[in-house]
């Protein structure tokens, strides 16, 4: 929760060691937060502490180290439960990231619940990670993929969505906030309508989890997935939230240790949730450190961070609009702090080179959303995305560097 003290970005920056480094001789300006966020020192310390003091395999050992490691690992599960407002900690499954979470659901839920002729609804704004796993299971089960159209602003076309819903709809898997454009999608309406048709809903929270208050019970989504590394946590950590009764109805995804209750060569009884879906030794250290990342966000307060980031978003948007030939892609009110733009006479890749030469990290290209880029009729964009530690001064340096780069290129 927010402490009520004013948001002090400069003291927050001191908690991120990487922000002290120079890139190409300049102070690093990190504007690629939608790809991955930097880590506060407490996350880095948690990793060191684990490996230096209580590294052990979890859940099985009866010695002190195993006990401490297990307690720390399970404490993260509790923290994630609180972070997204889940009802039960066994509804939290650890994966290695959003991509693995979606693959697990597509394979394990799809295996149990999809039959020939069923329909899966996705949107035109999806990341490849929320397209390809569905194509794989659809092909296997003889299901069909239907795609929610979007308007020119990058919002899902809700009339188009309602028209797609029917009794054959079994799954609606959509992004909460678009990674390429930052636009927050009307997931509440999608979930409500899908449920009226008896469909299950997966929300891809890769971009929303760090910026928006998430309460999966209020949202009433059936699955919510996100990556630890985008919420200031370590890479290789992911979360799959699923409603208990749905997770129980699914078959395991991977077989091995941890996920079993009893094994004989004739038959195996599976373990209970969440262990049924966590075969093998998990990513113990990184999951433990993820808790420190969630604590960092909670300490600052998501709404305080969002207010800070929103100021940067609006400021950067206004400054970009002043530059001749710059067009912002996806200009709507309701966005996470992501600005995607194209600039006349400048290929995104050229901008990436020249901005990098100024120490500025941005993302360019199709952002793993080729169908979206095709729909927009562009090859790619330059994407600027903000985090808790970015400043207005950094935006100014970026705008100056961008203007200079455009002058060089045109």
């Amino acid at each position, binding site marked *: 929760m927010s402490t009520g003290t004013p948001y002090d970005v400069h003291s927050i920056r001191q908690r991120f060691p990487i922000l002290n480094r120079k890139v190409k001789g300049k102070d690093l300006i990190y504007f690629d937060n939608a790809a991955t966020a930097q880590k506060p020192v407490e996350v880095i310390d948690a990793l060191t502490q684990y490996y230096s003091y209580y590294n052990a395999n979890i859940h099985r050992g009866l010695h002190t180290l195993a006990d401490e490691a297990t307690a720390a690992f399970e404490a993260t599960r509790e923290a994630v439960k609180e972070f997204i407002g889940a009802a039960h900690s066994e509804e939290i499954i650890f994966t290695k990231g959003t991509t693995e979470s979606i693959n697990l659901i597509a394979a394990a839920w799809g295996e149990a619940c999809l039959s020939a002729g069923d329909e899966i609804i996705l949107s035109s704004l999806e990341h490849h990670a929320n397209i390809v796993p569905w194509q794989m299971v659809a092909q296997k089960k003889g299901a069909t993929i239907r795609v929610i159209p979007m308007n020119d602003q990058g919002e899902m076309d809700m009339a188009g969505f309602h028209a797609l819903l029917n009794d054959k709809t079994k799954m609606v898997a959509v992004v909460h906030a678009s990674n390429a454009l930052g636009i927050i999608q009307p997931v509440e309406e999608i979930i409500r309508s899908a449920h009226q048709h008896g469909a299950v809903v997966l929300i891809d929270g890769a971009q929303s989890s760090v910026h928006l208050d998430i309460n999966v019970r209020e949202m009433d989504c059936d699955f919510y997935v996100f990556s630890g590394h985008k919420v200031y946590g370590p890479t290789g950590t992911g979360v799959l939230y699923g409603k208990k009764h749905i997770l129980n109805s699914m078959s395991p995804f991977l077989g091995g240790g941890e996920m079993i209750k009893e094994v004989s060569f004739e038959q195996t009884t599976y373990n209970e949730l969440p262990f049924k879906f966590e075969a093998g030794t998990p990513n113990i250290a990184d999951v433990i450190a993820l808790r420190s990342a969630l604590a960092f966000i909670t300490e600052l307060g998501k709404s305080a961070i969002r207010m800070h980031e929103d100021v940067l978003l609006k400021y950067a948007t206004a400054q970009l609009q002043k530059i001749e030939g710059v067009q912002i892609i996806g200009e709507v009110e309701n966005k996470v702090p992501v600005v995607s733009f194209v600039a006349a006479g400048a290929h995104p*890749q*050229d901008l990436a*080179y020249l901005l990098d*030469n100024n120490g500025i990290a941005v993302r360019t290209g199709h952002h793993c959303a080729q169908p979206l880029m095709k729909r927009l009729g562009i090859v790619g964009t330059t994407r600027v995305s903000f985090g808790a530690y970015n400043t207005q001064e950094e935006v100014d340096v970026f705008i100056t560097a961008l203007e200079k780069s455009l002058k060089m290129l045109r």
Partner: protein
Amino acid sequence: MENQRTIEEIEQQLVDDFALFETWEEKYEYIIDLGKKLIPLSDAFKIDAYKIKGCQSSVWIHSHYENGRVFFEGDSDAVIVRGLVAIVITVLNGQSPTAIAEAPLSFIDAIGLRSHLAQTRANGLSAMLKQMKLEASILGGQSSSHP
């Protein structure tokens, strides 16, 4: 034709040219300038068959063989990459298939292109050169089998 410079000589010339610039900003300006001056590739060659995979932008390289020498033309939709295309064409154009295959291409490291350009894009540069060497050896091989 007798004055044809060797690849090593051209590489050295490039290294010397780049050494004149003090900052990378100036080097970029030079690369952009080379990109802008590169003769555009005919649209007929801007097709998948001539496209180099591994670059974030589109890059096309077309080659042909004439009197024992390989000639290249190329293009890209990004101007800095066009500049890089211009540079590699300068180095390899009009050389024999054997000379191209054996070209040291040490100018890339000497100029600092590999260390300064982010890896993913440097890979694009490597992909470009690999493709040009491959085409040269194919063109050379075809010609020797049809004397």
